């Protein structure tokens, strides 16, 4: 079971792309997955509808009668996994979606604004873990960094800054490649349609790290 929340109070940080990719990877691994789209632009449903393998993925959107916790409760009864994509702002949904999660991923690009908002999101995640009285796995995912082997100086700087405030930064960054930008136009998802590609290998490594992070925070692992 996994409820995975993608949170970052800054917009345009890569939440939706990472959420789309996560849903696709779960489908590629034969898992059942539903999504909750809290972005008012509703990008998930439209995108999944265009990808034959993802057309059946249930995408829920909130309403005044069906709010976040009620929706997630319903989705989690029908699916092994629920992926929540938040709006890119500090909203009334942010901590609700975090408090429900088994894993919170905070995507962060490398600008100062991303860092500042990423730290704020991280602190909200810590509060959400306290409120829900659970050890919620969480990590900052550096996105849109150089896809090559050479790491830009600013990436190391960013890792230092997050570490300085006690945030855990995932080891594998999500590299910047044209294929991710083209994905919503082409409906071609590397790890679903071309698993041998470099882009696919990168996201699979990110996904594996997310799963490992979640396993390490699971009650059995914490007790061990």
């Amino acid at each position: 079971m996994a409820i995975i929340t993608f949170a970052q109070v800054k917009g345009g940080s890569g939440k939706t792309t990472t959420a789309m990719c996560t849903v696709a990877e779960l489908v590629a691994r034969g898992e059942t997955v539903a999504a909750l789209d809290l972005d008012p632009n509703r990008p998930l449903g439209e995108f999944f509808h265009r990808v034959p393998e993802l057309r059946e993925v249930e995408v829920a959107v909130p309403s005044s009668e069906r709010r976040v916790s009620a929706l997630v409760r319903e989705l989690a009864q029908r699916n092994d996994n629920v992926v929540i994509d938040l709006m890119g702002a500090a909203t009334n949904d942010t901590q609700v979606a975090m408090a429900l999660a088994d894993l919170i991923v905070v995507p962060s690009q490398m600008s100062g604004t991303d860092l500042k908002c990423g730290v704020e999101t991280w602190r909200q995640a810590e509060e959400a873990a306290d409120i829900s009285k659970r050890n919620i796995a969480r990590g900052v995912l550096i996105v849109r960094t150089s896809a090559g082997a050479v790491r830009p100086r600013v990436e190391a700087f960013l890792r230092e800054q997050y570490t300085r405030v006690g945030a855990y930064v995932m080891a594998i960054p999500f590299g910047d490649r044209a294929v991710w930008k083209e994905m919503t136009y082409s409906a071609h998802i590397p790890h679903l349609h071309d698993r041998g590609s470099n882009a696919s290998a990168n996201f699979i490594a990110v996904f594996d790290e997310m799963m490992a992070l979640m396993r390490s925070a699971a009650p059995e692992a914490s007790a061990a």
Partner: protein
Amino acid sequence: MSARPTRPQLEAPDLSPPTRRPGDVPMKTAPNDPRFEAAEQLETHAALLQGVKDGRVRVVNPDTAPPRPESASPVEAPRRRGPETSLSTKVPEYVMQQLRRRYAETGVTIRNQILFALRKDGLEIVDDDIQDERKRGGR
């Protein structure tokens, strides 16, 4: 001329069907899992107001905003500590646009947004004075 850095060898990923280890068997999250109760605490009107006050909530999602609790009897308007005086000033248009947008999103009036900001900056402003005149029933 410096040599171009060599790129790492490409290795074929493991394409064998995924196998699940015993501990990895997915189990659905039970509807009575305590996390749902914890999350519901955050979906109340009081939690929203606290979030706005603490600065944790800066935008209210109209789709999920908790409804105001209906009070059985009219709520007594808080007493202001002192009389009010008018203040007129000019601000850059883009600031005004942001204030208006935030009002549309959160329902916090421009007057109160300014008072909240001033209080955050250290000015003494008591809660009872941060009230919208329009909600005082024409007093």
